[in-house]
């Protein structure tokens, strides 16, 4: 937390990470669903 003095800096830092996580979510979820339900039609 050193070096973060303003809410603006804090939000910039956290949102940068969160946007990367969102990309990960959007990629991971379909893959996980495929793994989960992939054998349903067999």
């Amino acid at each position, binding site marked *: 937390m050193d070096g973060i003095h303003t*809410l*603006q*800096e804090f*939000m910039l830092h*956290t949102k940068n990470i*969160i946007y990367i996580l*969102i990309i990960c979510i959007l990629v991971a979820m379909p893959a996980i669903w495929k793994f989960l339900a992939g054998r349903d039609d067999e």
Partner: protein
Amino acid sequence: MSISRRKFLGWMGAAGMAGAAGTSAQAGSNKQFKGYPDSMGVLHDITRCVGCRKCEAACNKVNKLPSPDVSFDELTVLEQKRRTDAQSHTVVNQFQTDKDGAPSMVYVKKQCNHCLEPACASACFVKAFTKNPDGSVTYNAHVCVGCRYCMIACPFEIPAYEYNEAFTPRVMKCTMCHPRLQEGKLPGCVQACPTEALVFGKRKELIHVARERIRNFPDRYIDHIYGEHEMGGTNWLYLSGVSFSSTGMREDLGNTPAGKLTSGALGSVPIVAGLWPVLLTGIYAINRRKEKIAAKQQADAVNQAVSKANEEADAKIKAAMEKAAADKTAAIEREVKKALEQDAKARQEAQKAAREQSGDEGSDEDKT
């Protein structure tokens, strides 16, 4: 059943969204940010301003802005209320007030207030605005797209735009003379002020100075330091003898920093991204399963119907066969009977014929 299930999921989604907006508004709210500890600021004592426009002239000069149509010595421009624009980072406005029943003129300098939590910086999608450790909020034209959302966001209506530049339009606003501060100089306007209506210093200390003045001269000042808390606080502070709203400054802005106003909506973004796939895929899977079950039920029904039909057909065939067999025996029996009858008849007729033949001899006997 399935419809109510779907509706239930829909409500869950709606509740989830409302919940997300609620909870994420709190995310980070237990964290306190005090701003840069030694940031600088300017205290503008409105009661000391005489409306000479020297600050405007100095600002124009140090920022190398285009020279105006009307000279800075011309004070009649004060008669019209002005705002900052692409050619001027600061303006002085005059307001007629009557303090203690005596009408008097008040002069107020207007420029970027250099918020502790700048709305422009929060709104900018290319990080063109920076809150610097010296307190100034500066703008980087090299990344600016020109969406002008900063101008929408700024509660003090400060950023202006070079609308008449076709190819390189910039947002224009006061920099608190950030480049001059780095050289160890005062902001242009502060240096030019002849009445010390502008005082430059550490924000913390300026607040003390302002409090001191209010305490020492309670008749001269109203008990409020504008900018201490407005929109989360600003590095530019104001003292006034009349209500701030009568000097064109809004008192209804609230104390919430701009970043807090949007944190709820921003916070629900990852929640939607994380939960919508769950919800939507869930609804899809439920419907698919429902369809599968319906298809299976249909298939079963068809099968059942077919087998029933088959059974019926079998029974019919069997019955027909039995009937046929029965018919056959009956026919045989009938034929046999017929044959026998015919045989008997033939025999009778033969006997009759034989008797007739012999009857010629004993017809009397026949008649008896």
